[in-house]
């Protein structure tokens, strides 16, 4: 997604064209919501975080040093906003509570265990998984906002899913489903 047209949009926005900024916001709304969701686990709060990150981005747009890296910069703002919301709004993920649903067995159904498996991943891997599956983003879109190569994304996604699979096995998840 990082192409000439995006750079043109960023340049136009920095020059004062707010509608260009709006177009950038539309393009990255899905990825930003996904990034926020990876930290907040709440759809509504994730959308609020994405929108608040746009507010911070708009007033600081002229401080962006490398205009070709607009989307990773925006993603960094979004992470910070979401982290603030985690601390303040208390809509936190509680590992103990999540685990409680699956206590000591593999009896519980899909959603809880899978989310728990995502939750135990390190933050960067968790974000990558959510980016990929939350809104079905392409590798190109993920590469654009994460600032890493497609090959690296592929490797990291593979490792993250192996970790999830290992976790699910430990929880007694049926092997035939993995």
């Amino acid at each position, binding site marked *: 997604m990082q192409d000439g047209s995006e750079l043109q949009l960023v340049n136009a926005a920095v020059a004062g064209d707010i509608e260009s900024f709006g177009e950038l916001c539309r393009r990255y709304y899905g990825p930003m919501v996904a990034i926020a969701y990876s930290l907040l686990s709440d759809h509504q709060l994730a959308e609020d975080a994405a929108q608040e990150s746009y507010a911070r981005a708009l007033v600081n747009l002229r401080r962006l040093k490398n205009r070709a890296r607009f989307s990773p910069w925006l993603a960094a703002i979004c992470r910070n906003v979401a982290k603030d919301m985690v601390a*303040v709004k208390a809509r936190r993920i509680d590992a103990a509570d999540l685990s409680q649903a699956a206590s000591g067995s593999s009896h519980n159904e*899909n959603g809880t265990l899978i989310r728990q498996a995502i939750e135990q991943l*390190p933050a960067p891997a968790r974000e990558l998984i959510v980016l990929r599956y939350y809104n079905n983003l392409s590798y190109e879109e993920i590469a654009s906002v994460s600032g890493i190569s497609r090959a690296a994304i592929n490797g990291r996604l593979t490792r993250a899913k192996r970790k999830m699979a290992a976790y699910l096995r430990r929880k007694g998840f049926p092997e035939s489903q993995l």
Partner: protein
Amino acid sequence: MKADEDNKKLDEMISRAVGREVPAFDFDKWKDNHRAETEIFKSQTARQENSGSSWRLDIWRTLMKSKRNRVAAAAVAGICVLLTMILLDDAGSPAFGMTDVMAAMRKAEWMHITYEYAESDAGLDNAEPQVRESWLSVNPMRDITVFKNGDIGYTEHSTDQMRVQRYDAETNVLTTRYIPASVNSSYTSIVDKIFGDIAELEERGAAIERTDSVDDGRPAVIMNVDFIDDNSVHGRGSILIDVETRLPKRATFISEQSGRSSTIDIVFDYPKTGPADVYQAGAPREATMKVIGQRISADFLEAIAPYRAARENLPKPRIVVEVADRSTVSVIYANGMEERFEQVRRSKKAAPPDTEDFRAILDWAGKVIADKPAGPRIHINDGKNVYSANRDYSNPWTREEISTTRYGVGFTPAGLNYRGWPRIRTGVFIENDYATKNSLLCIETTSEPQFTGDSKLAEAATKTLYYIDPERDYMCVRIERFRHPVVPPWGGAAAEEVSVYDPKDIPTEPYLVTEVVQFGRIDSGHWYPGRISTTDKQSWSDSGRGWQMRTKTFDIRLYIDTKPEFPEGIFDPDRLPTADR
């Protein structure tokens, strides 16, 4: 090979668990909700500077930005007042100081504030002024805001929970959310919030003028402030304070720059009472109700206090070894605020010893971790952070540091807290035959169903009963979970089928029962669960003939040492395993 091609089944399950169609972004609406930022951006453009916001805009930004916490918005109104007072204080000639005003504001049980914000831009069509009206009360701490379009916001804070309500006039829907309060959003007074917000404004200089006046026949003081800030924005403020009550009554702030100006008019009054809820604020009682979460009542908090105290006061120091179903061994070391959790799982090469000997099991777990097979994980909680080390089949040890605000105290999914005194955030105390017959307390909690992005059922509505034994240190001795069977494993029912998942229409027979079947006591007399049995009637398994629901039982045994000798460095995160050791 792409990661996606590795495992289609897992991909599908992840998509179902977290997948969601993100709605389209409405930039026009966003601009409407972020007029302050848009204004800053325009002013930056006009100046062609890369600088930040002006003083006036900072205030309006704070006023506007928090949709969820109207207290912050109201606090900003107070900032206008207090800024003037601080500056007056700095000038060295106050008739009364900030402390007096703060004290007076604290005493006011209710504060009613009307804001009007208007912009004008020479040569352009100017937007209609924005008007909103808020009421704030200190005890209970709540704020109610009525917007010009008829929407109403209501937030009530308590130490355990926030009740956040929003009435949408367009759809006639009143949404109520019960949100657990975090440490950082715990009850603080409105005035204390103001203190926090004004700190950064104290350094600014301004010309202050004081005039004695009369307002409604009462002696008053008018403070005028006039200044030009770092970004050449000319600001003028005026505030009227009642001399007798020390309370602000009206304030106006005007900022001007390059032909643009903005005005905030604020009117304060301090009624004896105000709207106690959204209905008194104007929401129709026939509005469609949508409730998310379960309310924590004052009665519940009072009744559960002994349970929570018992949970907090479990004997320490201690080492607890837990053997779950003869396959997973967890070891929990606890000393003061420090906690360490290790978990290893049975493998073909390493099975837990078939013994009741605490030390033998502990030694086995230590050996498994030292030998570094796949599977072990270790967490250390030092009260501030959780340090985690994990090892799986494909990777060496990896480490992570996480703030405990995410995991909370007693974070381990095993051991004494988790098995005997599980965290119960909300619920209601009820009476039933089992509780009465066994002289137990019973708490009922419910949860709403959750859906995936494609409207499939992710988690059915549930009901849980916790049975607490006041004669055994308020230990939770039995848990019953209820829900409708989730029919397709790893799938979920469509949204239109979920009426049967309503928590009010839930089966009367539990699908899962967890019960303490053997009790233990340590030397101090403290009770602990020695053996726990779980029966799960909705355990899905695939034995090669397709998915089948079975009944499965689990057995968990706990062993405890309350006079432990902790190995050196056991709570030191720097000594967690790394990729090299």
